[in-house]
Protein backbone atom coordinates (compact mmCIF):
# COMPACT_ATOMS: atom_id res chain seq x y z
CA UNK A 1 0.00 0.00 0.00
CA UNK A 2 1.59 3.21 -1.04
CA UNK A 3 1.28 6.49 0.74
CA UNK A 4 -1.52 7.85 -1.40
CA UNK A 5 -3.63 4.75 -0.90
CA UNK A 6 -3.06 4.90 2.80
CA UNK A 7 -4.03 8.54 2.93
CA UNK A 8 -7.13 7.89 0.89
CA UNK A 9 -8.32 5.27 3.32
CA UNK A 10 -8.06 7.68 6.20
CA UNK A 11 -10.07 10.44 4.60
CA UNK A 12 -12.91 9.11 2.52
CA UNK A 13 -15.11 11.95 1.33
CA UNK A 14 -18.69 10.98 0.93
CA UNK A 15 -21.31 12.07 -1.53
CA UNK A 16 -24.80 11.12 -0.53
CA UNK A 17 -27.46 10.82 -3.16
CA UNK A 18 -31.12 10.12 -2.62
CA UNK A 19 -32.38 8.26 -5.65
CA UNK A 20 -36.03 8.12 -4.72
CA UNK A 21 -35.79 6.58 -1.29
CA UNK A 22 -38.33 6.88 1.47
CA UNK A 23 -35.97 8.98 3.63
CA UNK A 24 -35.62 6.22 6.18
CA UNK A 25 -32.10 5.42 5.10
CA UNK A 26 -31.25 9.05 4.47
CA UNK A 27 -31.90 10.08 8.01
CA UNK A 28 -29.86 7.13 9.17
CA UNK A 29 -26.97 8.34 7.05
CA UNK A 30 -27.37 11.75 8.63
CA UNK A 31 -27.42 10.05 12.03
CA UNK A 32 -24.04 8.58 11.19
CA UNK A 33 -22.64 12.08 10.98
CA UNK A 34 -23.93 13.14 14.37
CA UNK A 35 -22.24 12.62 17.73
CA UNK A 36 -23.55 9.20 18.69
CA UNK A 37 -22.21 7.40 15.64
CA UNK A 38 -19.77 10.03 14.48
CA UNK A 39 -18.45 8.76 11.21
CA UNK A 40 -15.88 11.53 11.23
CA UNK A 41 -13.68 9.43 13.44
CA UNK A 42 -12.87 7.52 10.27
CA UNK A 43 -12.07 10.77 8.57
CA UNK A 44 -15.24 10.69 6.54
CA UNK A 45 -16.73 14.01 5.55
CA UNK A 46 -19.99 14.60 3.76
CA UNK A 47 -19.44 16.78 0.70
CA UNK A 48 -21.80 18.17 -1.88
CA UNK A 49 -19.51 18.16 -4.84
CA UNK A 50 -19.12 14.93 -6.82
CA UNK A 51 -15.60 15.83 -7.93
CA UNK A 52 -14.46 15.91 -4.32
CA UNK A 53 -15.91 12.58 -3.37
CA UNK A 54 -14.42 9.09 -3.14
CA UNK A 55 -17.50 7.27 -1.96
CA UNK A 56 -21.00 7.52 -3.35
CA UNK A 57 -23.70 6.50 -0.88
CA UNK A 58 -26.92 5.89 -2.76
CA UNK A 59 -30.30 5.25 -1.18
CA UNK A 60 -33.53 4.38 -2.88
CA UNK A 61 -34.68 2.18 -5.72
CA UNK A 62 -33.74 4.77 -8.39
CA UNK A 63 -36.73 6.27 -10.10
CA UNK A 64 -36.87 7.07 -13.74
CA UNK A 65 -36.25 10.77 -13.49
CA UNK A 66 -33.40 10.23 -11.07
CA UNK A 67 -31.63 7.68 -13.18
CA UNK A 68 -30.00 10.27 -15.40
CA UNK A 69 -28.92 12.37 -12.42
CA UNK A 70 -27.38 9.35 -10.72
CA UNK A 71 -25.45 8.30 -13.80
CA UNK A 72 -24.30 11.84 -14.24
CA UNK A 73 -23.03 12.09 -10.65
CA UNK A 74 -21.26 8.77 -10.96
CA UNK A 75 -19.52 9.83 -14.15
CA UNK A 76 -18.43 13.07 -12.60
CA UNK A 77 -16.70 11.36 -9.70
CA UNK A 78 -13.03 10.76 -10.27
CA UNK A 79 -11.38 7.35 -10.18
CA UNK A 80 -10.84 5.46 -7.98
CA UNK A 81 -14.31 5.52 -6.49
CA UNK A 82 -16.69 3.14 -4.81
CA UNK A 83 -20.45 2.97 -4.69
CA UNK A 84 -22.31 1.84 -1.60
CA UNK A 85 -25.99 1.02 -2.02
CA UNK A 86 -27.62 1.73 1.32
CA UNK A 87 -30.81 -0.06 2.20
CA UNK A 88 -32.78 -2.95 0.87
CA UNK A 89 -34.53 -0.91 -1.75
CA UNK A 90 -31.27 0.41 -3.12
CA UNK A 91 -29.94 -3.13 -3.27
CA UNK A 92 -32.85 -4.87 -4.91
CA UNK A 93 -35.89 -2.65 -5.14
CA UNK A 94 -37.16 -4.08 -1.87
CA UNK A 95 -40.66 -3.12 -0.99
CA UNK A 96 -41.10 -1.11 -4.18
CA UNK A 97 -41.40 -4.22 -6.34
CA UNK A 98 -44.70 -3.26 -7.85
CA UNK A 99 -43.98 0.39 -8.38
CA UNK A 100 -43.99 1.42 -12.00
CA UNK A 101 -41.61 4.30 -11.69
CA UNK A 102 -38.73 2.40 -10.08
CA UNK A 103 -35.74 0.80 -11.71
CA UNK A 104 -35.41 -1.73 -8.90
CA UNK A 105 -31.99 -1.10 -7.43
CA UNK A 106 -28.89 0.96 -7.94
CA UNK A 107 -27.06 -1.83 -9.75
CA UNK A 108 -29.46 -1.50 -12.66
CA UNK A 109 -27.88 1.86 -13.37
CA UNK A 110 -24.30 1.97 -12.08
CA UNK A 111 -21.92 -0.66 -10.73
CA UNK A 112 -22.21 -1.18 -6.99
CA UNK A 113 -19.36 -2.25 -4.72
CA UNK A 114 -21.07 -2.77 -1.39
CA UNK A 115 -24.66 -3.61 -0.60
CA UNK A 116 -25.87 -2.54 2.83
CA UNK A 117 -29.00 -4.44 3.83
CA UNK A 118 -31.70 -3.27 6.18
CA UNK A 119 -34.88 -1.36 5.85
CA UNK A 120 -33.93 1.07 7.19
CA UNK A 121 -30.25 0.19 7.35
CA UNK A 122 -28.95 0.91 10.83
CA UNK A 123 -26.14 3.39 11.30
CA UNK A 124 -23.87 0.60 12.51
CA UNK A 125 -24.51 -1.32 9.33
CA UNK A 126 -23.93 1.73 7.18
CA UNK A 127 -20.59 2.35 8.86
CA UNK A 128 -19.64 -1.29 8.42
CA UNK A 129 -20.56 -1.06 4.74
CA UNK A 130 -18.50 2.05 4.33
CA UNK A 131 -15.46 0.41 5.93
CA UNK A 132 -15.82 -2.63 3.67
CA UNK A 133 -15.93 -0.27 0.76
CA UNK A 134 -12.81 1.48 1.94
CA UNK A 135 -10.93 -1.80 2.10
CA UNK A 136 -11.86 -2.29 -1.50
CA UNK A 137 -10.87 1.25 -2.32
CA UNK A 138 -7.45 0.71 -0.78
CA UNK A 139 -6.76 -2.17 -3.15
CA UNK A 140 -7.61 -0.13 -6.18
CA UNK A 141 -4.65 1.32 -8.05
CA UNK A 142 -4.33 5.07 -7.91
CA UNK A 143 -3.99 5.20 -11.64
CA UNK A 144 -5.82 2.78 -13.89
CA UNK A 145 -3.42 0.52 -15.80
CA UNK A 146 -2.95 1.35 -19.40
CA UNK A 147 -5.85 0.12 -21.47
CA UNK A 148 -7.92 -0.89 -18.47
CA UNK A 149 -11.47 0.31 -18.13
CA UNK A 150 -11.73 2.82 -15.30
CA UNK A 151 -13.77 1.52 -12.36
CA UNK A 152 -14.41 -1.95 -13.66
CA UNK A 153 -17.87 -3.26 -13.09
CA UNK A 154 -18.69 -5.40 -10.11
CA UNK A 155 -18.68 -9.11 -10.74
Amino acid sequence: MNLIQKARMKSPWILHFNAGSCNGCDIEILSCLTPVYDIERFGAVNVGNPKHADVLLVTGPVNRRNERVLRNLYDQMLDPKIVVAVGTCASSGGVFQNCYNCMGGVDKVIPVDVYVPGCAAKPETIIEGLILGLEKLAKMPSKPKKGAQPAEART
Partner: protein
Amino acid sequence: MSEGTSVPFGPQHPVLPEPIQLRISLEDENVVQALPALGYVHRGIEKAGELNDFQQNVFLVERVCGICSSIHALAYCLAVEAVLGLEAPKRASYLRVVWMELHRIHSHLLYLGLLAEAFGFESLFMEFWRVRERVMDLLEMTAGNRVIISVCTIGGVRRDIDAEQARAIREELPKLRDEARRLVDSLLSDYTVRQRTVGKGTIPAALALELGAVGPTLRGSGVAQDMRMAGYAAYGELEFRPVTFPDGDTYSRTAVRAEEVFQSIDLVLAALDNLPEGDLKVGFKGRPEGAALARVEAPRGELIYMVVGNGTKNLERMRVRVPTYANIPALLTVLPGCEFADVPVVTLSIDPCISCTER
Protein backbone atom coordinates in the same frame (compact mmCIF):
# COMPACT_ATOMS: atom_id res chain seq x y z
CA MET B 1 -39.14 40.51 -15.52
CA SER B 2 -37.17 40.54 -18.73
CA GLU B 3 -33.96 41.23 -16.85
CA GLY B 4 -34.67 38.71 -14.14
CA THR B 5 -32.47 35.73 -13.48
CA SER B 6 -33.61 32.17 -13.18
CA VAL B 7 -31.92 29.97 -10.63
CA PRO B 8 -32.60 26.29 -10.10
CA PHE B 9 -32.56 25.44 -6.41
CA GLY B 10 -31.89 21.71 -6.11
CA PRO B 11 -32.37 18.85 -6.85
CA GLN B 12 -29.07 18.32 -5.03
CA HIS B 13 -28.85 20.99 -2.40
CA PRO B 14 -27.06 20.62 0.92
CA VAL B 15 -29.98 21.84 3.05
CA LEU B 16 -32.45 19.55 1.39
CA PRO B 17 -32.06 15.95 2.32
CA GLU B 18 -34.26 15.10 -0.58
CA PRO B 19 -34.30 15.88 -4.25
CA ILE B 20 -36.76 18.61 -5.11
CA GLN B 21 -36.13 21.40 -7.49
CA LEU B 22 -37.46 24.91 -7.10
CA ARG B 23 -37.10 27.06 -10.16
CA ILE B 24 -36.64 30.51 -8.79
CA SER B 25 -36.86 33.72 -10.76
CA LEU B 26 -34.93 36.58 -9.27
CA GLU B 27 -34.95 40.30 -9.63
CA ASP B 28 -31.61 41.30 -8.10
CA GLU B 29 -31.65 39.41 -4.84
CA ASN B 30 -35.42 39.20 -4.54
CA VAL B 31 -37.47 36.22 -5.49
CA VAL B 32 -40.30 37.04 -7.87
CA GLN B 33 -41.52 33.56 -8.61
CA ALA B 34 -40.91 30.03 -7.43
CA LEU B 35 -42.10 26.91 -9.15
CA PRO B 36 -41.45 23.36 -8.05
CA ALA B 37 -40.18 20.67 -10.36
CA LEU B 38 -41.13 17.40 -8.80
CA GLY B 39 -40.82 13.80 -9.81
CA TYR B 40 -37.42 12.87 -8.47
CA VAL B 41 -38.88 10.60 -5.82
CA HIS B 42 -42.10 9.51 -7.47
CA ARG B 43 -42.28 5.74 -7.22
CA GLY B 44 -45.89 4.90 -7.96
CA ILE B 45 -47.06 3.68 -4.60
CA GLU B 46 -50.73 4.33 -5.29
CA LYS B 47 -50.64 1.86 -8.15
CA ALA B 48 -48.62 -0.63 -6.14
CA GLY B 49 -51.32 -0.34 -3.50
CA GLU B 50 -53.77 -1.73 -6.03
CA LEU B 51 -51.46 -4.52 -7.15
CA ASN B 52 -50.52 -5.73 -3.67
CA ASP B 53 -52.65 -7.63 -1.24
CA PHE B 54 -54.38 -5.23 1.15
CA GLN B 55 -52.51 -6.70 4.10
CA GLN B 56 -49.13 -6.33 2.43
CA ASN B 57 -49.93 -2.70 1.87
CA VAL B 58 -49.31 -1.91 5.52
CA PHE B 59 -45.61 -2.44 4.91
CA LEU B 60 -45.69 -0.55 1.66
CA VAL B 61 -47.34 2.56 3.05
CA GLU B 62 -44.83 2.70 5.88
CA ARG B 63 -42.24 3.29 3.21
CA VAL B 64 -44.08 6.19 1.64
CA CYS B 65 -42.05 8.24 4.04
CA GLY B 66 -39.44 7.00 6.44
CA ILE B 67 -39.75 9.90 8.85
CA CYS B 68 -43.42 9.57 9.72
CA SER B 69 -43.69 5.96 8.60
CA SER B 70 -45.77 4.44 11.37
CA ILE B 71 -48.28 7.25 11.09
CA HIS B 72 -48.89 6.29 7.48
CA ALA B 73 -49.46 2.74 8.63
CA LEU B 74 -51.89 3.96 11.28
CA ALA B 75 -53.89 6.00 8.79
CA TYR B 76 -54.06 3.11 6.37
CA CYS B 77 -55.05 0.67 9.10
CA LEU B 78 -57.75 3.01 10.38
CA ALA B 79 -59.19 3.29 6.90
CA VAL B 80 -59.16 -0.45 6.27
CA GLU B 81 -60.56 -1.11 9.72
CA ALA B 82 -63.43 1.24 8.94
CA VAL B 83 -64.15 -0.65 5.74
CA LEU B 84 -64.03 -4.00 7.50
CA GLY B 85 -66.05 -2.72 10.43
CA LEU B 86 -63.37 -3.50 12.99
CA GLU B 87 -62.44 -1.61 16.07
CA ALA B 88 -59.00 -1.94 17.54
CA PRO B 89 -58.91 -2.99 21.21
CA LYS B 90 -58.40 -0.31 23.84
CA ARG B 91 -54.89 -1.34 24.69
CA ALA B 92 -53.89 -1.23 21.05
CA SER B 93 -55.27 2.28 20.70
CA TYR B 94 -53.21 3.48 23.64
CA LEU B 95 -50.08 1.77 22.38
CA ARG B 96 -50.64 3.38 19.03
CA VAL B 97 -50.65 6.76 20.72
CA VAL B 98 -47.37 5.95 22.46
CA TRP B 99 -45.62 5.03 19.23
CA MET B 100 -47.13 7.80 17.17
CA GLU B 101 -46.03 10.41 19.66
CA LEU B 102 -42.53 8.97 19.95
CA HIS B 103 -42.40 9.25 16.20
CA ARG B 104 -43.55 12.83 16.32
CA ILE B 105 -40.84 13.69 18.84
CA HIS B 106 -38.14 12.24 16.63
CA SER B 107 -39.50 13.97 13.56
CA HIS B 108 -39.71 17.37 15.22
CA LEU B 109 -36.23 17.10 16.72
CA LEU B 110 -34.97 16.18 13.29
CA TYR B 111 -36.60 19.28 11.87
CA LEU B 112 -35.17 21.54 14.57
CA GLY B 113 -31.71 20.15 13.89
CA LEU B 114 -31.98 20.61 10.15
CA LEU B 115 -33.23 24.15 10.62
CA ALA B 116 -30.24 24.94 12.82
CA GLU B 117 -28.01 23.53 10.13
CA ALA B 118 -29.68 25.69 7.51
CA PHE B 119 -28.62 28.75 9.51
CA GLY B 120 -25.11 27.42 9.68
CA PHE B 121 -25.58 26.64 13.37
CA GLU B 122 -23.75 23.36 13.09
CA SER B 123 -23.22 22.60 16.75
CA LEU B 124 -26.89 22.98 17.56
CA PHE B 125 -27.71 20.59 14.72
CA MET B 126 -25.41 18.03 16.30
CA GLU B 127 -26.94 18.60 19.72
CA PHE B 128 -30.52 18.15 18.52
CA TRP B 129 -29.58 14.97 16.78
CA ARG B 130 -27.75 13.69 19.81
CA VAL B 131 -30.89 14.19 21.89
CA ARG B 132 -32.95 12.59 19.19
CA GLU B 133 -30.95 9.40 19.58
CA ARG B 134 -32.67 8.89 22.93
CA VAL B 135 -35.99 8.55 21.12
CA MET B 136 -34.46 6.33 18.50
CA ASP B 137 -33.20 4.06 21.27
CA LEU B 138 -36.69 3.93 22.76
CA LEU B 139 -38.15 3.03 19.39
CA GLU B 140 -35.55 0.35 18.88
CA MET B 141 -36.14 -1.05 22.33
CA THR B 142 -39.91 -1.25 21.95
CA ALA B 143 -40.29 -2.04 18.28
CA GLY B 144 -37.03 -3.62 17.23
CA ASN B 145 -36.17 -1.16 14.52
CA ARG B 146 -35.15 2.43 14.61
CA VAL B 147 -36.91 4.20 11.81
CA ILE B 148 -39.46 1.95 10.19
CA ILE B 149 -41.05 0.41 13.23
CA SER B 150 -43.94 -1.56 11.70
CA VAL B 151 -46.08 -1.70 14.80
CA CYS B 152 -49.52 -1.08 13.37
CA THR B 153 -51.44 -3.81 11.70
CA ILE B 154 -55.01 -4.11 10.55
CA GLY B 155 -57.05 -4.60 13.71
CA GLY B 156 -54.49 -3.49 16.27
CA VAL B 157 -50.78 -3.53 16.93
CA ARG B 158 -48.16 -6.22 16.48
CA ARG B 159 -46.15 -5.65 19.60
CA ASP B 160 -46.69 -4.95 23.24
CA ILE B 161 -44.94 -2.62 25.62
CA ASP B 162 -44.32 -4.53 28.82
CA ALA B 163 -43.84 -3.11 32.29
CA GLU B 164 -40.08 -3.14 31.99
CA GLN B 165 -40.13 -1.17 28.74
CA ALA B 166 -42.72 1.24 30.06
CA ARG B 167 -40.45 1.94 33.01
CA ALA B 168 -37.53 2.61 30.70
CA ILE B 169 -39.63 5.05 28.68
CA ARG B 170 -40.75 6.81 31.86
CA GLU B 171 -37.16 7.19 32.96
CA GLU B 172 -35.83 8.34 29.63
CA LEU B 173 -38.42 10.91 28.63
CA PRO B 174 -37.89 13.36 31.52
CA LYS B 175 -34.18 13.40 30.73
CA LEU B 176 -35.03 14.07 27.13
CA ARG B 177 -37.38 16.82 28.16
CA ASP B 178 -34.68 18.60 30.16
CA GLU B 179 -32.11 18.37 27.42
CA ALA B 180 -34.55 19.39 24.72
CA ARG B 181 -35.74 22.31 26.83
CA ARG B 182 -32.23 23.69 27.07
CA LEU B 183 -31.66 23.37 23.35
CA VAL B 184 -35.04 24.77 22.38
CA ASP B 185 -34.50 27.75 24.64
CA SER B 186 -31.17 28.49 23.10
CA LEU B 187 -32.65 28.12 19.62
CA LEU B 188 -35.70 30.27 20.13
CA SER B 189 -34.12 33.04 22.18
CA ASP B 190 -30.96 33.38 20.15
CA TYR B 191 -30.56 36.83 18.63
CA THR B 192 -29.17 35.60 15.32
CA VAL B 193 -31.81 32.94 14.96
CA ARG B 194 -34.53 35.47 15.60
CA GLN B 195 -33.10 37.75 12.96
CA ARG B 196 -33.18 34.96 10.46
CA THR B 197 -36.67 33.73 11.24
CA VAL B 198 -38.89 36.48 12.64
CA GLY B 199 -40.99 37.99 9.87
CA LYS B 200 -39.59 35.66 7.20
CA GLY B 201 -42.06 33.89 4.98
CA THR B 202 -45.15 35.16 6.76
CA ILE B 203 -48.38 33.32 5.96
CA PRO B 204 -51.42 35.14 7.41
CA ALA B 205 -54.12 32.90 8.83
CA ALA B 206 -56.69 33.70 6.14
CA LEU B 207 -54.23 32.91 3.39
CA ALA B 208 -53.14 29.70 5.08
CA LEU B 209 -56.73 28.50 5.24
CA GLU B 210 -57.46 29.53 1.71
CA LEU B 211 -54.44 27.67 0.38
CA GLY B 212 -55.29 24.63 2.42
CA ALA B 213 -52.22 24.59 4.65
CA VAL B 214 -52.19 22.01 7.44
CA GLY B 215 -50.34 21.02 10.55
CA PRO B 216 -47.66 23.19 12.14
CA THR B 217 -47.78 25.49 9.12
CA LEU B 218 -51.42 26.26 9.86
CA ARG B 219 -51.01 26.32 13.63
CA GLY B 220 -48.03 28.63 13.23
CA SER B 221 -50.50 31.07 11.72
CA GLY B 222 -52.67 30.92 14.82
CA VAL B 223 -55.33 28.50 13.62
CA ALA B 224 -56.03 25.81 16.19
CA GLN B 225 -56.62 22.87 13.94
CA ASP B 226 -55.18 19.50 14.65
CA MET B 227 -56.67 16.19 13.60
CA ARG B 228 -55.87 14.76 17.01
CA MET B 229 -58.80 16.87 18.21
CA ALA B 230 -61.04 14.50 16.27
CA GLY B 231 -60.04 11.82 18.76
CA TYR B 232 -58.94 8.86 16.65
CA ALA B 233 -57.05 6.04 18.41
CA ALA B 234 -57.01 7.03 22.08
CA TYR B 235 -56.54 10.76 21.63
CA GLY B 236 -60.16 11.37 22.54
CA GLU B 237 -59.48 10.11 26.05
CA LEU B 238 -56.26 11.97 26.67
CA GLU B 239 -55.99 15.61 27.45
CA PHE B 240 -55.00 17.46 24.36
CA ARG B 241 -54.93 21.06 23.24
CA PRO B 242 -53.36 22.12 19.95
CA VAL B 243 -50.28 24.35 20.15
CA THR B 244 -50.55 27.57 18.21
CA PHE B 245 -48.40 30.62 17.65
CA PRO B 246 -49.90 33.72 16.10
CA ASP B 247 -47.41 35.27 13.70
CA GLY B 248 -47.33 32.91 10.76
CA ASP B 249 -43.62 33.36 10.14
CA THR B 250 -40.77 30.89 10.16
CA TYR B 251 -40.23 31.57 13.84
CA SER B 252 -43.82 30.70 14.76
CA ARG B 253 -43.75 27.51 12.79
CA THR B 254 -40.54 26.48 14.49
CA ALA B 255 -41.93 27.37 17.90
CA VAL B 256 -45.02 25.24 17.27
CA ARG B 257 -42.86 22.22 16.53
CA ALA B 258 -40.63 22.87 19.50
CA GLU B 259 -43.60 23.05 21.88
CA GLU B 260 -45.14 19.97 20.33
CA VAL B 261 -42.08 18.00 21.34
CA PHE B 262 -42.97 18.65 24.98
CA GLN B 263 -46.64 18.07 24.38
CA SER B 264 -45.85 14.73 22.79
CA ILE B 265 -43.71 13.75 25.76
CA ASP B 266 -46.67 14.47 28.03
CA LEU B 267 -48.98 12.48 25.79
CA VAL B 268 -46.68 9.45 25.82
CA LEU B 269 -46.45 9.55 29.61
CA ALA B 270 -50.21 10.00 29.96
CA ALA B 271 -50.91 7.12 27.58
CA LEU B 272 -48.55 4.87 29.53
CA ASP B 273 -50.17 5.84 32.80
CA ASN B 274 -53.63 4.99 31.50
CA LEU B 275 -52.62 1.92 29.54
CA PRO B 276 -55.51 -0.55 29.89
CA GLU B 277 -55.05 -4.30 29.95
CA GLY B 278 -56.41 -6.33 27.09
CA ASP B 279 -55.80 -7.77 23.68
CA LEU B 280 -53.41 -6.34 21.16
CA LYS B 281 -55.48 -6.98 18.09
CA VAL B 282 -58.77 -8.29 16.88
CA GLY B 283 -58.91 -10.94 14.24
CA PHE B 284 -60.94 -10.50 11.13
CA LYS B 285 -62.31 -12.45 8.25
CA GLY B 286 -63.34 -11.30 4.87
CA ARG B 287 -62.09 -8.77 2.44
CA PRO B 288 -62.63 -5.06 2.27
CA GLU B 289 -65.76 -4.02 0.43
CA GLY B 290 -66.76 -0.41 0.49
CA ALA B 291 -64.85 2.80 0.94
CA ALA B 292 -63.45 4.73 3.86
CA LEU B 293 -61.40 7.78 4.51
CA ALA B 294 -59.14 8.25 7.50
CA ARG B 295 -57.54 11.49 8.61
CA VAL B 296 -54.79 11.56 11.17
CA GLU B 297 -52.24 14.10 12.29
CA ALA B 298 -48.73 13.35 11.10
CA PRO B 299 -45.81 15.48 12.33
CA ARG B 300 -46.14 17.69 9.26
CA GLY B 301 -49.90 17.95 9.34
CA GLU B 302 -53.00 16.18 8.34
CA LEU B 303 -52.53 12.88 6.56
CA ILE B 304 -55.39 11.33 4.62
CA TYR B 305 -55.87 7.84 3.33
CA MET B 306 -58.83 6.81 1.28
CA VAL B 307 -59.26 3.16 0.43
CA VAL B 308 -61.83 1.68 -1.89
CA GLY B 309 -62.26 -2.06 -1.64
CA ASN B 310 -64.15 -4.20 -4.11
CA GLY B 311 -64.46 -7.44 -2.19
CA THR B 312 -61.25 -8.96 -3.49
CA LYS B 313 -57.88 -9.06 -1.80
CA ASN B 314 -56.69 -6.18 -3.95
CA LEU B 315 -57.96 -2.70 -3.36
CA GLU B 316 -59.74 -0.84 -6.09
CA ARG B 317 -57.94 2.37 -5.17
CA MET B 318 -55.67 3.66 -2.46
CA ARG B 319 -55.45 7.41 -2.31
CA VAL B 320 -52.86 9.15 -0.19
CA ARG B 321 -52.92 12.85 0.53
CA VAL B 322 -49.91 13.88 2.54
CA PRO B 323 -49.36 17.06 4.55
CA THR B 324 -46.52 18.53 2.49
CA TYR B 325 -48.76 18.33 -0.54
CA ALA B 326 -51.12 20.74 1.15
CA ASN B 327 -48.36 23.04 2.35
CA ILE B 328 -46.56 23.54 -0.94
CA PRO B 329 -49.06 26.11 -2.33
CA ALA B 330 -48.55 28.22 0.79
CA LEU B 331 -44.80 27.98 0.40
CA LEU B 332 -44.95 29.02 -3.25
CA THR B 333 -47.06 32.00 -2.33
CA VAL B 334 -44.73 33.32 0.35
CA LEU B 335 -41.43 32.77 -1.41
CA PRO B 336 -41.89 35.70 -3.81
CA GLY B 337 -40.72 38.75 -1.93
CA CYS B 338 -38.13 36.87 0.10
CA GLU B 339 -34.46 37.45 -0.38
CA PHE B 340 -32.70 34.65 -2.17
CA ALA B 341 -30.49 33.86 0.81
CA ASP B 342 -33.61 33.20 2.88
CA VAL B 343 -35.02 30.65 0.46
CA PRO B 344 -33.44 27.60 2.16
CA VAL B 345 -34.71 28.57 5.60
CA VAL B 346 -38.23 29.49 4.47
CA THR B 347 -38.46 26.33 2.38
CA LEU B 348 -37.38 24.26 5.33
CA SER B 349 -39.87 25.98 7.60
CA ILE B 350 -42.79 24.00 6.20
CA ASP B 351 -40.69 20.90 6.91
CA PRO B 352 -41.12 19.55 3.39
CA CYS B 353 -41.16 15.83 2.93
CA ILE B 354 -40.80 15.11 -0.74
CA SER B 355 -40.98 11.36 -0.68
CA CYS B 356 -44.41 11.77 0.91
CA THR B 357 -45.48 14.32 -1.64
CA GLU B 358 -44.64 12.30 -4.67
CA ARG B 359 -45.31 8.83 -3.32
